[in-house]
């Protein structure tokens, strides 16, 4: 990863800024809320990947390390599955 990557970093910053502007447009789109949520989450994941792969240089790391970083995802899904049982509980403002 040594070397001058200035151009790649600039392109990445511009891409991230464009994706953020598009996100602001998505919340104004006359589409169902569920479609907005899916689109916004997809854009967020894309931006996260751009930061991780380019700025955090994850694309230059070994496959083993990249896979290790995916370990928290099933744990987070397990937590989400666990809290689903609490959903019928209603909070009162």
């Amino acid at each position, binding site marked *: 990863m040594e070397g001058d990557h200035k151009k790649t*970093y600039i392109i990445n910053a511009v891409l991230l800024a464009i994706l953020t502007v598009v996100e602001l447009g998505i919340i104004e789109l006359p589409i169902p809320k569920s479609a907005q949520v899916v689109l916004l989450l997809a854009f967020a994941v894309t931006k996260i990947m751009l930061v991780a792969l380019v700025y955090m240089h994850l694309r230059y790391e070994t496959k083993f390390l990249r896979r290790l970083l995916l370990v928290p995802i099933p744990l987070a899904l397990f937590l989400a599955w666990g809290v689903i049982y609490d*959903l019928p509980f209603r909070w009162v403002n």
Partner: protein
Amino acid sequence: MNQTADTIAVRRDPFGTATTGKLGMWLFIIMDGLSFGGILIGGAALRASAPSWPAPGEMLNIPLTAFNTFLLICTSFTMVMALNSIQKGDQKGLVKFLAATMLGGLLFLGIQVWEYAHFIGGSQELTASLEAAGFVGATSFLPSTSIFGAVFYATTCFHGLHVLSGVIYISVILLQARKGTYSAENHDRVEILGLFWHFVDLIWIFVFTVIYLI
């Protein structure tokens, strides 16, 4: 012969050429990511069981926060440029880009504090927004105002503390950089700092989407 043996050793290492310091930061990022995951999933569960939840932009200032998001993206760029500079042995570039990153972080925190002050201090405009969002009678927006307030402050405050930690961390590395501690051969700590700062940016991207836009 030795060189070949070293090359084989590097190739067989599952972590490649990553230093122990860098691996330590990756481990921290995994654990901290789980903390944020817990907060965000908990917030989503509370939202699902809350009787009402404000629509995007009804209460929170989206244009201002979008600017903050853009600012954090810019600081990620300046941080990676700081590393890029020192990899080429450019110590002045390192100091310049680290200082720019720190200033960006401070500006981000300043905007967040201003947003909190606006919510806590209250105003006629805020009272109208609170009423439109279903919080009739509330004059300020506090963690106790509603479950939405609790989720908003818990998430943004936890992230804000990370930005503050990052700014302090940058200031330490910046002081060392000014003394000429880092060079093209010795810049591991700059890279480790970069990992932390980019993680803070990465988490904000998700917080911005989940708390402000959805």
